[in-house]
């Protein structure tokens, strides 16, 4: 996972949940950060806007921490890039 992508994910979470960026790390669990299901839905919305991706419901059902969320975003960003280059 690139540092740049991770940093963007951490920033989206911190901004959306309105908590200091330094409290969010790649190893944070949602429970530690007080992120409930509605917070998670808002963060997904913000991530979709930040990375211009669409995150399917099924992909998010088991996500419980920041690392899983960042890995999911990375996969969708890669799939989008592959789709774009295939289209060229």
């Amino acid at each position, binding site marked *: 996972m690139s540092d740049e992508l991770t940093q963007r994910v951490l920033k989206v979470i911190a901004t959306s949940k309105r908590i200091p960026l330094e409290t969010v790390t790649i190893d944070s669990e949602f429970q530690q950060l007080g992120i*409930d*299901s*509605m917070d998670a*839905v808002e963060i*997904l*919305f913000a991530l979709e806007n930040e990375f211009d991706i669409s995150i*399917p*419901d*099924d992909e*998010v059902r088991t996500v419980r921490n920041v690392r899983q969320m960042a890995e999911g975003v990375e996969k969708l960003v890669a799939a989008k890039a592959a789709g774009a280059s295939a289209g060229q």
Partner: protein
Amino acid sequence: MRRVAITGMGAICALGRNVEEVGASLCQGRPGIGRIESTDCSQLRFQNGAEVRGYSHQPYFDDRRADFIDRFAQFAVIAAREAVRCAGVEWTPELRENAAIITGSCVGGQSTEDIGFHEVYKLGHNRVHPLTIPKTMANAGASHISMEFGITGPSFTISTACSSAAHAIGQAYWMIRSGAAELAVTGGSEAPFSFGILKAWEAMRVVSPETCRPFSKDRRGMILGEGAAMFVLEPLEAARARGAPIHAEIVGFGMSADAAHITQPSAEGAGRAMRAALRDASLAPEQIGYINAHGTATPANDVTEASAIRAVFGAQANGLPVSSTKSMHGHALGAAAALECLATVLALRDGVLPPTANFTEADPECDLDVIPNCARPTQVEYAISNSFAFGGLNAVLALRKA
């Protein structure tokens, strides 16, 4: 305090255009869920809903009258007409003055508003249709019912998301019981199949991409529905005196607020509403023979509701039939509790408990007798109907076989 009878019922939803059709679908466990036809869903993550298929206003309203009435309010009037006809109400000037109308709706005419906002925001037009406001207002259903029958008594609309119709029916019940009204037309109506509204539901990530499977281990969320159910309530003695049909009695109503979270349900709040309804009805939990569940089929609701039922009913919950008819008529938001009250009345009246359709696999976290897939012939004396809204506002109705 007076006893309160349900003397008239009317309905229109994905399961049928009248009470008889809806009742037949419920007994057969036949869902009205399918691909959404009234709105283009190609840009949505879900494609299925419980619509009134092929609906046109034409058998019900002339074109000019229909111009003034959003689909949600049309449904309200259609169901109210059937309910009033079924009750055989004989209107007098005194009765019209002493009759109340209390309706529930969550989104009201937002589909009309959606069209107007599309005109100004997307198409760049400088004006919206002048009927946008009177068609959008959530009380339009109550207003059009009042004009339809010339009812001039206390009339209003309650909007408590998915509990709206239960709060409405409960208030109407209390008004008849206390003598504040001699007759009430009450229920709920909804028509949420508009692109902007569907997009908002998509963003919540609570709508199933396939069907609605309440209490089933593989449930994937709710299915939106539309329609209306309306009832005529009267004092039991007056109804008997005039020889009116008595479909069931309403015997209790309870409400509570979770005061916890704007979307996550609380078992404690749900339990308090059930207990309040039992207390209002002077019933012990052991007397309840059937629960029509809120049962949305979201992961959160069904576990929470099952745990609340266990907390209220204790060991009795093991043998207590509980079903969610949302598996068939979908989640019709502000109309949901009215459709579910209807399903409960029919279960009591006809001695057939409606099933939880689309059920595949038991979830240990929803360890209840959910009447999977097949209706069950059972005579029941008392039943409750649960409604738990987003925002944590809960309402429970208690009913008795006539």
